[in-house]
Each structure stands twice: as C-alpha cells, then as structure tokens.
C-alpha cells in the first residue's frame, strides 16, 4: 500500500519544565521519575489538543518507561500500542493510523536520566548490551556513545576537510537559537573561540558538542487527518517519511567510519521527498537529531542540503544559525535546549508550523524536515501545514 501524504497530523503537543526541573535537580531535588515526567507532558498535550481523553485509542511510550505501567497511569485502554524511540514512534503512529488500527494516538516520553545518574559510557553504559557496538570494545577502554561519534568525526574531518572551527559553528548556531527559547536550559551565547577553547571530552569532540542530559517529558497526539481537521484549525500534517538502515559491520563501526551512513540517509531522504513531493530546497526549517553535534554535518550532506564534501563551505557561506540561509535546530537542539532523545525536535516542528515559536519563529514556515541517524537507523520525517 502506498503511503499517503497528509493522512495523519499532530494535534497536540506537551512538555515538562525542562529548565526549571534542571535547576531543581541541580539542587538535589527529585521532581519526578520517568513515568511522572511523561504523565505531566501528556496532560499538557491533552490540554493543547482540546480533545477528550476518551477519543485516544492508541498509545506509544518511549523506551524509558514500561508500556503497561504508562497506560495504567494515564488510564488509557487502547486498541493499539507499543514502545518506540522518537522517530520510530512517529512512523509507527502513521502506520497504525493508515492501516486502521487506531485513529488518535498519544505518544508519551519521560526520562529521569539526569536525576537518576544515567551513564552513557563506562562500566554500566546505558543501552549497553542491547547495542553491541556500545560495549564490544570496552576491553580496550572504548566506551561512551560520544566516543563513537568522535571516531567518526576524526575520520570525516580527514576525508572531507572539516576543520575544528568549522565544526564549532554547529554548537555556536544552536546556542544562538537557544537564546531565543525560554524552555532551553543553556541560553548563554558562545563564539567559535569559546568552542575552540572549551575542554575536550573525547577529542576531537568538545564539551559543547555533547547533548545536555536532563530530566523531562514530551508528549504528542497524532490523529488521522479527518479527525484532526474536525478538532483543530491548525493541524500539522505528516507530508513524508522514509527509513533506511545500515547494519552490516555495525559492531566494528564500518558504516560509521567508511561512509558515515550516507547511502542510508540518501535512501531515507529520497523516500520522504518522493512521498511529500518536495525536496531539501523547499524546507523552511531543518531539525536534525543531535545527541552529538556530528549528526548535523552528516545530515546536511546525507539529506541533500549541500554537496557531499561541501558542508564546511555550507556552514560558513550559507549558515545554519539565526540569519543563516537554512535554520537548523531552531530550538537549540539537544546541545542547548535539552536532551530529550529526539522527542523535543517534534515539538519544535509543530511550533514553527503553528507560528508559535516566539522570537525564533521562521516567518511563514510551511515545511519542516526532521532527520535522525542513530545506531544504524536513518529516518526522515517531513511536516507541513
């Protein structure tokens, strides 16, 4: 069955107080657990949607909460449900609605990763054995997800001529956007010099290349288009989606070190562009999953925003920050807003398309592209009015 553009739309978004909870956690408080953050975000999204809870007949929870418990807490006995990461959840909701398993699906994510001291490297690395490449090389001291991206970046810089100062433009641009976002945790502007002088965590990655691990929740309500149009004047449609994976050689990092996932990005991008009937030149806003800054140049090349090998020039001459030719991660991304494992990017897409992005609003934004490249999976989602 062919996928249909505009068959599904987002009608509700919600989140917790990321910066407020960040301050509380730093003061030693424990504002909520993962389920609690998710529930708060759900309440916010339900209010935003204006629909009765009884209309929700599907539920997808993030990877950090148990599905059954989450459904119990929210009081949702649904026709269809499951557990998925951010972008996979969007694709699953789209598939379930298009195939008639559900009509209105709540997507809820909550994570107490900061207050719980979740480790993304070291002896108890998060995700550890479920992602073999994250732990296979620990006898040699190779641990932490950042280190995988540092290895990727070093080779990429060598092959494609991306200097450290070029790289710094990603963190600088996202911080500049974050200064216009009250929800963002880090809002102090930085310069390329600040970046270059900042400490390394795993060289060549600086501390500003790492996401801000934080507690919080995000929720979305996705419905079929007919229902969405009946309930809201401004549904945000899913125009196109695409996915492509590279798993061969994954543990030994082959896809990361030889072609930087490029073929999978190109395939996922093309599938979504064909479905939406538009391409990279038509995008008003680009949002790239950015657990580490490295994702951004890889996505700009992989999804056709610039020539392969041309991203350094693109960053310098076109620009991705305020005033740049292509606004990228206008909420500040994971680097400056909050690390919500890709879920917060979906909120920003909706806000930009509703015209609710405040001083960082891209005037008249009609299309937003979200991309994600994590652990072999490349996914592309195009949202539009």
């Amino acid at each position, binding site marked *: 069955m062919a996928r249909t553009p505009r068959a599904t739309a987002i009608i509700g978004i919600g989140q917790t107080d990321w910066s407020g909870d960040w301050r509380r956690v730093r003061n030693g408080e424990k504002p909520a657990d993962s389920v609690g953050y998710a529930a708060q975000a759900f309440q916010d999204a339900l209010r935003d949607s204006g629909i009765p809870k009884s209309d929700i007949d599907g539920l997808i929870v993030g990877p950090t909460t148990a599905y059954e418990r989450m459904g119990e807490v929210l009081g949702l006995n649904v026709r269809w449900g499951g557990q998925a990461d951010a972008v996979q959840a969007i694709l699953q909701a789209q598939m379930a609605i298009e195939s008639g398993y559900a009509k209105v699906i709540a997507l809820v994510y909550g994570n107490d990763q900061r207050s719980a001291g979740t480790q993304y490297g070291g002896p108890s690395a998060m995700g550890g054995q479920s992602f073999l490449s994250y732990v*296979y090389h620990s*006898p040699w*001291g190779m641990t932490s997800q950042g*280190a995988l991206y540092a290895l*990727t970046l070093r080779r990429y810089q*060598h092959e494609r001529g991306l200097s450290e100062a070029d790289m710094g433009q990603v963190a600088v641009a996202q911080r500049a956007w974050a200064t216009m976002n009250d929800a963002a945790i880090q809002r102090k502007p930085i310069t390329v010099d600040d970046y270059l002088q900042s400490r390394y965590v795993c060289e060549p990655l600086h501390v500003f290349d790492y996401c801000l691990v934080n507690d919080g929740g995000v929720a979305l309500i996705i419905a079929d288009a007919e229902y969405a149009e009946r309930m809201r004047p401004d549904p945000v449609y899913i125009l196109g989606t695409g996915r492509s994976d590279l798993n061969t050689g994954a543990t*030994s*990092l082959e896809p990361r*070190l030889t072609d930087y996932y490029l073929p999978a990005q190109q395939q996922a991008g093309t599938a979504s562009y064909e479905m939406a009937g538009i391409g990279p030149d038509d995008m008003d806003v680009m949002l790239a999953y950015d657990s580490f800054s490295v994702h951004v140049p890889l996505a700009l090349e992989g999804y056709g925003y610039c020539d392969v090998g041309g991203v350094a020039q693109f960053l310098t001459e076109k620009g991705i920050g305020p005033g740049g030719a292509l606004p990228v991660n206008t909420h500040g991304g994971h680097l400056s807003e909050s690390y919500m494992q890709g879920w917060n990017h979906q909120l920003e897409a909706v806000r930009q398309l509703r015209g609710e992005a405040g001083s960082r609003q891209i005037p008249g934004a009609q299309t937003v592209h979200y991309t994600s490249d994590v652990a072999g999976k490349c996914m592309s989602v195009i949202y539009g009015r």
Partner: protein
Amino acid sequence: MDIAPTPAPVPLVHDIPFWDSVKQKDLKLQRCADCGQFRYPAGPICAECNSEQATWERVSGKGTILSWVVFHKTYLPAYPAPHTVIAVRLDEGPIMISNLEGPEPEGSWIDERVSLRYSTMPDGVVLPRFELDRAAS
C-alpha cells in the same frame, strides 16, 4: 594498591575462540569456509554468503589506522584519562578497535601502518594492540 580490572569482554559465545587465541598470543579471526570472508565479531552465519561453515585463521597482524580519539574523561578505572583509542583496518578486511602503544605519529594518525603486538595489562589480561609499523615506508 588495588589494580583496576581490565573491562571484561562482552560474553558472546561465538567470540570464545577469538579470546582464546588472544590469550595464546596467536590472534585468529573467524573466516567463512565457503566465500573466505573474515568475520569480526564472530557470528553464526556469513553475512556475505549465508554459509554456516567457518574456520579460525591466523591474521597477518598488519593494518592501517582509520581513525583515532583521545579520551580526556575517565570512564573506566583501568583507563585513566588521557587515553587513546584507534580504529584499525586489518589487511584481511575487518576493522578492529584497539590502542596504539609506543611512539605516536606526528599530526594525523590516519593512514599510518601498524602491526599487532600483545600487551599484558596490570591484572594479567592479554590484549591485542598495535604499534607503528616501522618496516612500512
């Protein structure tokens, strides 16, 4: 003084002969008995030709550095910062993640030729590591 234990390999049943060969300082990788493809990590079938037949073969120990990083944060007690990690493309094909011992190259390490050596960690664990291949031009 306590000696930090070397992080244990993730226990994969197919990898047992690999770690046994390391212990004997005679590194062997799994190789498809049908198409000849080396597998690292070892696995139950050949990703290339689907064969279930495999042998264990000694590798040349020669390779080329694909990439390298320097940890400035300590994650594991056995590896206090700063410590380096390299990705080596073995001449047989697979990529091995390891460490460089001995002299370090000036500037970029990428494309430097390396050869295998065996290191004994303070807790007695033997690890396959690499050093610059001085015989290479």
